[in-house]
């Protein structure tokens, strides 16, 4: 099994609700993948299963051959949809904490990104705006030399200039062994950066293609196609 991420007949039910409904998926290394879908389509559930925060109802999932757990977490860097850091901590404290916790954490990279985004390492999180906190979280996640990055809405809360910097970081960080999966609603901002697109709808995969396949076959951008497919 050469694929970095592989899942077969993966389902997650919450009572009668099918958050994920029989998903089979293979994602190789060296890809930047957009996981796109309207609200409640299963994007965050999928990412949580990858991180062992939820257990699947049916089916299985492997990351570099591992089931989600201690071994997989060593190679997966996850940006959750919500803030989980302690408010009273300084950025420098959190960096030290991450450095202790993850052997692949690159401190220099973190401080470098902080500087570029004008964030002071001595500041406490509670003094920061929502957008700045999000930037700090993303810096922590991108400072690991992981094999799989799972970014749940990484650019939703930040300004357009920081958005460009973040996308630039994702491109600059690219390596052939690592894959990045990004869930977002800001498709037009991000589609140039993506290899593959996965459309999720009501827990099922509606489409799995490359950006250029979509543009070639439909003559539309991914953003336009999304608006058409998910028209309310």
């Amino acid at each position, binding site marked *: 099994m050469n694929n970095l991420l592989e899942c077969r007949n993966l389902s997650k039910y919450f009572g009668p609700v099918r958050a994920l409904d029989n998903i089979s998926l293979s994602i190789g290394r060296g890809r930047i993948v957009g996981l796109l879908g309207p609200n409640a389509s299963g994007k965050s559930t999928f990412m949580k299963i990858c991180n062992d925060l939820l257990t699947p109802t049916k089916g299985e999932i492997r990351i570099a051959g591992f089931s989600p757990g201690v071994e997989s977490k060593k190679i997966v860097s996850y940006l959750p949809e919500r803030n989980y850091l302690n408010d009273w901590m300084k950025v420098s404290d959190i960096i030290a904490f991450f450095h202790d916790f993850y052997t692949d954490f690159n401190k220099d990279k973190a401080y470098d990104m902080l500087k570029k985004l004008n964030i002071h390492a001595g500041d406490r999180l509670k003094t920061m705006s929502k957008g700045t906190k999000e930037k700090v979280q993303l810096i922590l996640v991108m400072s690991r030399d992981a094999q799989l990055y799972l970014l749940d809405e990484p650019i939703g809360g930040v300004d357009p200039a920081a958005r460009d910097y973040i996308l630039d970081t994702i491109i600059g960080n*690219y390596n052939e062994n690592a894959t990045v999966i990004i869930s977002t609603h800001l498709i037009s901002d991000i589609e140039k950066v993506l290899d593959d697109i996965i459309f999720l709808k009501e827990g099922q995969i509606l489409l799995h293609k490359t950006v250029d396949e979509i543009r070639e076959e439909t003559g539309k951008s991914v953003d336009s196609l999304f608006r058409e497919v998910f028209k309310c």
Partner: protein
Amino acid sequence: MAWELKTDRPIYAQLIEQLELRICSGIYPPGARMPSVRDLAQEASVNPNTMQRALASLEEDGLLYSHRTSGRFVTKDVEMIRKTRNKLAQEQVHEFLKKMGELGFEYSEILSIITDLAEELIK
């Protein structure tokens, strides 16, 4: 020169055109070493695999060549670059003529408009 990418066409095809343009206009002169895939991808804000694919295609066409260890270079074949430049010019003129046709202009009218404007520009 800024990278201009339209949203409704494959990115890969547009990168090929933009790279050709940069080679023809001398931004990447004959025999020069090309920037790395990563740098080019970052500059154009595109996926590195897509940039790699565009570069590989130009290599296949002979406009670029790669050295196993030292990277990718622009061809030294000036004649080939000239041909590419002509091809790009023809595409531009085709597009222009099509639009002028849609506006209902005759060939002779188009020529006189161009001549007049060019004379104004030279002044």
